[in-house]
């Protein structure tokens, strides 16, 4: 883009912010998905164990 035009570094701060916003957001989404899936599985396990007890 402005690479050979400017003496100063190119004004790319918005892209820097966008880049790190995306990186942190994706990582956060994955972390939350791990927590939610773990919670749901624990609930499933509890329900199934109760069912198993009733069947016995």
């Amino acid at each position: 883009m402005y690479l050979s035009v400017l003496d100063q570094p190119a004004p790319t701060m918005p892209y820097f912010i966008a880049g790190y916003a995306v990186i942190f957001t994706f990582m956060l989404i994955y972390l939350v998905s791990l927590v939610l899936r773990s919670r749901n599985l624990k609930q499933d396990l509890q329900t199934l164990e109760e069912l198993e007890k009733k069947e016995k």
Partner: protein
Amino acid sequence: MQAKPRWLSILDGVTAVIFAAAVAMVFFYAPEEAVMGMVQKVFYFHVSAGWVGMLGFLVAMIAGIIYLRTGDHKWDIAGLAAVEIGMVFALINIVSGSIWARPIWNTWWTWDPRLTTATIMELIYAAYLMLRAGIEDPDRRARFGAVYAIIGFISVPLTFLSIRIFRTIHPVVIGGEDPSAKGAFDMTPKMLQTFMFSLLAFSFVFADLFWHRVRLGQLADKVEQLRLKLIQ
């Protein structure tokens, strides 16, 4: 599910501290690049995310080989965990690269060999998840998954080497002096330190997430077995 191991809690803490330090280094320690400006700093986590993506696929391939040799189901769980984490970080790598490319290449996307092979790699592993989702029998699913992870790994060295084999505008930051590369730069000592520390931080993030994801897989396995037992 077993109680959270003490070592995992320690790893959580260590990873959080190292990751926070890496963020601080990127934001406050690494200097602004003379030509590209601040967007060059995306490079530190962009490359680190790519490293974790490829590391995940490597671990999945190794887990696949061990599963086929031993038939031990825990390796199937490990393989799936590694692929899932690898996919998340490969996606971060692709998207952050696209954001970097916009001001430097003047486009969000181009079908450059590196971008193309990285996308194919991501799609290959997306198909891995789809394949698994389509097989109900756990043993068959594990066997097919292992074979697929081994064959699919071919895409990883191809992606890594694509910028060294093919003519490309993607910079080769370490050991690359291709004049046609757009966005290449020489690292100052502070940049190199930040880069190496980011790689270390992401390696810890991978180890920590992998352990958590394996535990999640073990829990899912337990639920599935109990469900099958109740159906019979």
